[in-house]
């Protein structure tokens, strides 16, 4: 047995987890190797310390609660969100966030800047167009009361478009 395999086996020896022949091999090495013996003594001293400590008394449901919280955190949305704040994801998350904010602003506040001169001109056009419209409606829809069209029959209602026809000379 060499020092490395002996060192690996020391903890198992102290826990009585080695088979009898393995124990004998390790003991035989320790008797001839002061370096490993020193390590063994150090470990045995540490084990002795822990054996002296009284085990803590805790609520048996504590472990289950801790386990459940860990499991929930690993699989829940909170865990997913937390992964986004990992340092390696931060630049990407920031860039995506900036794009989304810009998009939201663009949709919410579209560029409504209208040339005031154009708007003014359009308003003027609408005014003139309304005047033309009034005149057109007067020609198109108001019957001429004094006009005798059908052999002087005053009861015949007839609208004349004569003046309203742009093709008439």
């Amino acid at each position: 047995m060499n020092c490395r395999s002996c060192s690996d086996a020391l903890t198992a020896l102290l826990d009585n987890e080695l088979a009898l022949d393995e124990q004998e091999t390790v003991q035989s090495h320790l008797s001839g190797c002061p370096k490993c013996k020193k390590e063994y003594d150090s470990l045995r001293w540490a084990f002795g310390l822990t054996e002296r400590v009284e085990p803590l008394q805790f609520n048996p449901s504590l472990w289950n609660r801790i386990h459940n919280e860990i499991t929930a955190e690993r699989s829940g949305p909170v865990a997913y969100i937390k992964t986004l704040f990992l340092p390696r994801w931060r630049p990407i998350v920031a860039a995506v966030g900036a794009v989304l904010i810009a998009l939201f602003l663009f949709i919410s506040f579209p560029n409504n800047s209208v040339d005031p001169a154009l708007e003014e001109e359009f308003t003027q056009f609408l005014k003139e167009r309304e005047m033309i419209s009034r005149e057109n409606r007067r020609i198109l829809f108001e019957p001429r009361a004094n006009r005798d069209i059908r052999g002087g029959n005053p009861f015949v209602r007839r609208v004349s478009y004569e003046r309203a026809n742009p093709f008439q000379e």
Partner: protein
Amino acid sequence: MRYPHIAICFILSASGLIQGQNWETTRHLAEVQHEIVMLLIEKGEFGKVPQAANEIFLLDFPQDQERLILVEVEMLVDALVHHEQITVAHQVVDLALGCEITDKSKAQLHREKGYLFKKEGKAEEALKSFERSKELEKEG
């Protein structure tokens, strides 16, 4: 030929006469078709109006008489707006826009579209149409 200038004068006068005759026919057809369109509006048969109006727009108008098409569109728009038939009025203007007319005339028709959009309460579209008319005026 001894007198070529006389021959040329004769040909030019003849072509002018034919052109004049053609225009008179077109004008008369348009006059009759206008009455048909107005009757359709009076009878409330608004669905037939765009097609009937298009018969006028498809007539071969000389460029110097295009203003008559614009006056016709203006009148039809007013008649249709009066009957709250703005969608039909839009169709009429669109059909007129589809004919072979100058950009200046198209600009005028886009103004009509703007007027109709305004009537519908669509201020943004109205202004866009007006802007388009200004662009066409510049191009023309």
